[in-house]
């Protein structure tokens, strides 16, 4: 746990979300958002115990291959086809403190851009040795890593000729339900990033750049797999200066 006082878990409310940094709900160039975006203002609420707390998952739930997408769906002795990569990084909070015990779940298309999902109709072939999902839990320093193949770009019915850049979806649990986050990781140098209407829902270029994982040459394993580094920042917690004051903080 992220400890500050006598090893006890922190219980402060989370920093307010900067909703000018996140994508707004209504982003018409991403067409599905038009009918799925609330039109009324959100009701603001300082975090109560219902949002400050959240489920925390133990490492014991993980299977041996949960963070190895090259092998976790493959037949014995076989492996997924594609560019072998390692994705690794740290989960931090806005104060720069490590978030240990964070559950990360990821999913992606195969090397040809094809998802293993019955609603997917793209003509690129499935890889019989690739399922497309994995998970891991950060260690005491907030560190995680997993092995996969680099996903391909794929077309989608939005504009006439819209293609998603290569990306991996991430779902992250911190220590409080208010930190719950789903995002997408993109790859350094991909020219498709700047054409994508989903990337374009994010108003601030710096926020987009924070989603682009650089090629990490230092951690590339010779004759095996290249590495990409992707750090994730969750909401920080307010210090609980006067937590026990009967009249409240």
């Amino acid at each position, binding site marked *: 746990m992220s400890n500050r006082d006598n090893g006890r878990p922190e219980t402060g409310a989370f920093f307010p979300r900067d909703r000018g940094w996140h994508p707004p709900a209504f982003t018409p160039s991403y067409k599905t958002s038009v009918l799925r975006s609330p039109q009324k203002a959100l009701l603001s609420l300082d975090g109560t115990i219902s949002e400050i707390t959240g489920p925390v998952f133990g490492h014991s739930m993980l299977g041996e291959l949960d963070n190895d997408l090259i092998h976790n769906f493959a037949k014995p002795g076989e492996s997924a086809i594609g560019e072998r990569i390692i994705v690794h990084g740290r989960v931090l909070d806005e104060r720069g403190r490590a978030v240990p015990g964070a559950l990360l779940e990821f999913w992606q298309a195969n090397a040809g851009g094809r998802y293993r999902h019955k609603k997917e109709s793209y003509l690129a072939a499935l890889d019989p040795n690739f399922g497309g999902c994995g998970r891991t839990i950060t260690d005491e320093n907030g560190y995680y890593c997993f092995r996969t193949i680099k996903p391909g770009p794929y077309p989608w019915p939005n504009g006439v000729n819209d293609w998603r850049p290569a990306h991996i979806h991430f*779902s992250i649990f911190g220590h409080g339900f208010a930190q719950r986050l789903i995002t997408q990781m993109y790859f350094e140098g991909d020219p498709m990033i700047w054409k994508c209407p*989903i990337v374009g829902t994010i108003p601030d270029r710096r*926020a987009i750049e924070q989603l682009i994982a650089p090629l990490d040459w230092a951690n590339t394993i010779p004759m095996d797999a290249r590495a990409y580094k992707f750090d994730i920042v969750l909401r920080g917690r307010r210090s609980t200066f006067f937590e026990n004051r009967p009249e409240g903080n």
Partner: protein
Amino acid sequence: MVQDLGYLKETASQTAGPYVHIGLTPNFCGIPGIYESDLGSAMVNDKTRGERVTVTGRVIDGAGVPLKDALVEIWQADAAGLYNSPSERRGTADPNFTGWGRCPTGAEDGVFTFKTVKPGRVPVSDGRLMAPHITFWIVARGINLGLHTRMYFPDEPAANAEDPLLCRIEHRHRAETLVAGGTAPNYLFDIHLQGEKETVFLDI
């Protein structure tokens, strides 16, 4: 100039997309064998304390059509009003209750179902009690940032009337969007993303 506060920026959200089930409920979407079971599919067991309830509902778009590709997560206190979380300092929650559930809206009918227990009341920081409630988080294709809301119970009118959150809703008729329908033990909670019946969503 002054000192730099030095805070990092939160990683920006992106939509979960239409294939969120591959990652979060792979068994549900026909990818067996990677995980034993889908995470969050069972919240209770035989030993869980409290009144068993079932919560079903749909997530409905601005054209009145239920989403069949949404994913809903809930988080709640146990029957005694304690959260199964390391940040819970008021006591120890029921070890046979996770407090957290995850359910896709069904591919056929767009319905989500949670088998859980009715939560106890929990206080806000000044000590006032909130009415029993379940926190909801909704993601889907077309939703750029996960939506937080709460479900309250229709058979708790007195507690609901003094709930600090419900009392803050300026347009009183909108408070009703957070109160489930149905009767114990089967509650119905439809979430309207947009339009006349739009659910109150929270910035928490």
